[in-house]
């Protein structure tokens, strides 16, 4: 496939352009909410609307972040990796909005009520846990932090995203009153992405073993 070959050989300046376009594209959900808010388009319950919308984008962005590695492996488009940090940080950005809306517009800084919610309501508990877990990942997302931690430790820490994504989907699932169609779709997509990772690491282990066995016999 010549187009794929061409894509694989994309020049760094082109990748930078793609990154810039993606950066702007991922601001669209927020711009849209702002536009709707100004034009009375958020419906009868605007706070619910923006809470749900930002939450939906957090989950979507987490899945997009998790999609980078499998997609890169399957396609050989190594530059995809350069988009991953931005996707992850956008997930954190929308999570901050989501959590901020809850604290401010939903609870009006009623800390007692918020603490009670977190402790008593399982769907809030898992959602809050996922949010808290995102903080160290965002904090260690810079190149300097990667160097400081060392690649191995950094990678180990950032495996937290698997747990975060699972908690996020559970959060969505548990808050549904009866219709779980959408949470199920997110769960299925996440399942596929995690399964793909399982397959990759199993293959890696299988590939490493004969090599190890060979080196022992020599």
């Amino acid at each position: 496939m010549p187009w794929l070959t061409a894509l694989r050989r994309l020049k760094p300046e082109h990748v930078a352009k793609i990154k810039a376009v993606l950066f702007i594209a991922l601001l669209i959900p927020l711009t849209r909410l702002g536009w709707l808010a100004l034009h009375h388009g958020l419906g009868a319950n605007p706070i619910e609307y923006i809470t749900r919308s930002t939450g939906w984008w957090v989950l979507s962005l987490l899945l997009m972040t998790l999609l980078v590695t499998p997609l890169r492996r399957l396609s050989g488009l190594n530059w995809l990796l350069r988009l991953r940090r931005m996707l992850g940080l956008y997930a954190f950005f929308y999570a901050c909005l989501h959590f901020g809306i809850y604290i401010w517009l939903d609870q009006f800084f009623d800390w007692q009520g918020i603490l009670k919610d977190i402790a008593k309501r399982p769907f809030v508990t898992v959602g809050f846990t996922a949010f808290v877990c995102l903080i160290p990942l965002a904090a260690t997302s810079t190149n300097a932090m990667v160097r400081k931690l060392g690649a191995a430790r950094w990678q180990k820490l950032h495996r937290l995203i698997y747990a975060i994504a699972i908690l996020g989907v559970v959060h969505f699932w548990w808050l549904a009153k009866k219709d779980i169609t959408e949470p199920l779709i997110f769960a299925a997509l996440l399942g596929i992405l995690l399964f793909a990772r399982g397959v990759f690491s199993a293959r890696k282990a299988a590939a490493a073993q004969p090599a190890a066995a060979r080196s022992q016999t020599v």
Partner: protein
Amino acid sequence: MLIKRPNDIVPSEITAKSLYDRRRQFLAGALALGATAGIGALGLSMPRMARAGAKLSNLHKSALSTTGEDVTPLKDATTYNNYYEFGTGKEDPGENSGKLRVRPWTVSIEGEVKKPRVIDLEEFLKLAPLEERVYRMRCVEGWSMVIPYVGYAFSEVIKRAEPTGKAKFVEFVSLADPEQMPGVKMPILDWPYVEGLRMDEAMHPLAILCVGMYGETLPNPNGAPVRVITPWKYGFKHGKSIIKIRFVEQQPKTTWQLANPNEYGFYSNVNPEVDHPRWSQGRERRIGELGKRRTLMFNGYGDQVAQMYTGMDLRKFF
């Protein structure tokens, strides 16, 4: 002189009729596709006009109306609904209930009554003088509205049906026609939707047979053409588009109770002390307001209804 040339291009040549007829799905599909790519997200669905109902004349203002509260705008009351027969989204009933045929409409009165019969809607409209009753409506999800309903005491229906001594409960069965109600094709709930009241609750002066709101016949997303309203209970108790009223001896198995017995009880009286297992019922968001307000016991109708539940453990009979 102005000469009008015949329009030689038929509109169907520009856009195929089949495509034109499916334009909403087409647009929705394109929008979904665009949103996935993150570019169509700016698209807006057209704001829909609330379907105008027929004006109901000679309405008496009821003394049982709630006073001193701002009435929720009609547009909010008709575009933000839970009516799963038309889909589980809040906008779904407003968008998908256009196909509901509300005339002719009959309601079958059956079960433990001396006078079982099928009543035509037109008769229902004249059974008793229509009153305007402004009531608070509290949804189990934690939001509320203030709606001027039109109807009359449900006891008027009971009186005429002459229930036998065996009638201990009233059961309301809603229409479940997949042809008119797309949501019924989904196995989200056990169709048809069934609700019920204890006999004394159904006889209570606040319980109304509702045929309209805002001075007009009921809009489709609000349960046209006939429903029941018990303002001290959560909204899901207010059966919509009723086709059967059955007087029964045993407590009816109501839809939400069957769907999730831990979360929804038969009584479902508004109660800030008894939380839904997954969220607090202590406060509510009045549609149109930013902050939350305290939820009142029995939705503020405690003075009138509390005596029906004396001696009952409301944590057990939630």
